[in-house]
């Protein structure tokens, strides 16, 4: 500030220059940090690219071989011809999409009810639902399985083991989803909802015309969250399916691991092939993620 007091034009320009170079140094530093974390995030995945293209049953070789010496496609060929990889991938897509769609519908509806409607025992019910959020998946695995077996008889085989409804429905219940949706609806200005009531809209019309359009960001976030969770889900699809017709990728790939000998090249190839479609799906939806980020703009 002394410089300013001098009123010397030269010094002022120097200061300006220094502060702008400081700014660019700062932005370069922040850029460097981001690049570093990008390497940390994406880099480790490279460990599976090399073995996927190598004709070896080994994890690694001595000395470390970072690049395959020849471009070997046998692992992929094995997956595509000797396993039901394509079927597994399709099933995973059906499973994860099915769960996501149903979960989004029931979660937004219930979230709306908990955020905006009055009914007896609301708090108690919500508390109970939240409590079940903390149940470890492994703990309810067997009871859920038996339940689906039981439903098999009662729904004439519609909801049962080795059926998509039986695989999908139990996973659609996510207390977290209801919690997130309720939280989001509560952040919408209550005036909107009240204005619509005054304007004569029924709850259903308020939900579809006013609340739902404003919930797009939250729906995308929850949707991606649920999809990812189910994409990686292993335990439930494992017990709920017995055949390749309904088995999903995670289960299929687990069965490629022998008790004593594992063909790491095949596993790496499978991992790589699993990553490609999900990355595409993610890239497709990521612009929605941007929208989710500007959710705040809607808040008046």
């Amino acid at each position, binding site marked *: 500030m002394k410089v300013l007091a001098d009123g010397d034009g030269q010094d002022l320009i120097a200061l300006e220059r220094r502060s702008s170079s400081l700014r660019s140094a700062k932005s370069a530093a922040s850029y460097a940090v981001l690049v570093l974390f990008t390497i940390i995030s994406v880099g480790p995945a490279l460990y599976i690219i090399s073995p996927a293209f190598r004709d*070896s*049953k*080994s*994890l*690694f*070789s*001595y000395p470390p071989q970072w690049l395959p010496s020849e471009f070997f496609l046998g692992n992929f060929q*094995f997956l595509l011809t*000797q*396993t039901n990889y394509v079927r597994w991938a399709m099933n995973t897509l059906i499973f994860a999409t099915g769960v996501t769609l149903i979960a989004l519908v029931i979660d937004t509806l219930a979230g709306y009810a908990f955020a905006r409607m009055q009914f007896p025992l609301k708090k108690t019910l919500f508390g109970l639902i939240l409590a079940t959020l903390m149940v470890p998946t*492994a703990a309810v*695995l*067997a009871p859920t*399985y*038996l339940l689906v*077996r039981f439903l098999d008889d009662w729904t004439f085989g519609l909801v049962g083991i080795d059926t998509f409804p039986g695989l999908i429905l139990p996973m659609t219940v996510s207390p977290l989803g209801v919690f997130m949706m309720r939280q989001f609806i509560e952040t919408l200005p209550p005036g909107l909802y009240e204005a619509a009531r005054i304007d004569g809209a029924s709850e259903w019309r308020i939900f579809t015309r006013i609340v739902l359009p404003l919930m797009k960001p939250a729906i995308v976030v929850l949707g991606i969250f649920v999809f990812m969770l189910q994409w990686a889900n*292993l*335990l439930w699809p*494992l*017990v709920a399916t*017995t*055949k390749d017709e309904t088995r999903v990728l995670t*289960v299929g790939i*687990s*069965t*490629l*691991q*022998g*008790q*004593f*000998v*594992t*063909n790491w090249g*095949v596993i790496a190839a499978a991992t790589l092939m699993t990553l490609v479609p999900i990355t595409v799906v993610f890239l497709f939806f990521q612009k929605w993620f941007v929208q989710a980020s500007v959710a705040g703009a809607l808040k008046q």
Partner: protein
Amino acid sequence: MLGFMAASVMVLGACGGTDSDDAATDDTAASDTGSSDTGSSDTGSSDKPFEGVTLKFGKAPHGEDEKDNWNKWLGEFTEQTGIKVELTQVPWDQLEALYTANFASDEPYDVTYQTSAHLTLFGEQGSFEDLTGRIAGEDFAVDRPNFPDGVINASVYNGKLYGLPFVVGTTAMFVNKDMFTSAGVNIPSSGDELIKAAKAIMKDQKAKGNKDVWGFYVPRTVADYGWYWNLSDVHNRNGDFLSADGKTATMDSDAVKGAAQYAADLICKEKVQPENGLYNREAAIELFKAGKLAMIQDEPSRVKTFKDEGLPFEWDIAMPVGYQGKATQFATTGHWTISAKSKNADAAWEFVKWLSSAEFNSTYNQRYGFVPARLDADASGGDEMLARNASWVAVWDGLRTSPKVNQLLDPYGQALEAAASCKTSVDDAFAKAQKQAAEILAG
């Protein structure tokens, strides 16, 4: 138990895997022919009494190509019998979770493959049919003599046979012969010799500029089932972790502690084996393949993969060494079970008989490299190493089993891992294990 085994397998050793009916048949349990009245049809006969029946079949794979192979094999079976079989591949890591849910339901898999630990774990909960009656039946009379009593009896718990033995596991010591030649030492036949040979090789390799070479590796961690590799040495010391009646834990016995002490010494005192955690089992195999490990104890199923890959040095398998040169074999057994709730138990028995046939057993094991449980199967397919491996069944001693076996092996494995981590004394570790085991057995 060992006596039975030795006697019956002597025969196997002598006849080199050819079909021989020498095996003693007079030992078979009192036959109870009434239990399998429908099962008189031979596989391959023109009438197909179970035509149209569909069986559910659960199996964890021994290799990534198993599914493909089963499609072929099961097709043959269906052609012969008209029985359809739906295979579910069970991943090893989640095997117990899958079977727990499945066996809890009304329609479990009709036939499954089970290792000895799981056989009693689920068997004692009523999941599997007792096959005692079936193997004494008329339709099995031809096959029965090919199953040594020792192998059958090892699978009997509380008088019940929950599964028909299919394969008998063994472990082998893979040795890098080049390293032995270079150091001028012989393949060891006792624990002490192993340490000496390992040290000599490490010294020799270091002198030759080959850095970071280790003498020996065998898994000692819970994650790699340390107990599995350690039990043979316990048996070599004439002991076990559990009393014969399965009622008393003997984790603090001299045999158990002695074996653990030896295991710990290899790492902590003699330093011929890498510290726990540096290499797990898979990583150590890579180490061996890369010529940085002189000896590694592992499954003989590696023989085929090593041969396929072609290791860049001379190698061989040897009998794992034991205390004072006494060497027994230990591994678990694989069985075919029929679910107690199966609605097609008789058809399932047809399938089990087919799976246990000499032909199928030979086919399967020539690919996956186990020792067949029946004498007339030929798993070596002319391979000298596999034939040698099969001969080791002569000194095989199986797992003392109990419905609580997994629970009991956990403190054992934990104690072994603790001792091998060089931070806890063997006495302390196994005193704790003994206490825990006693609590588990009490209630």
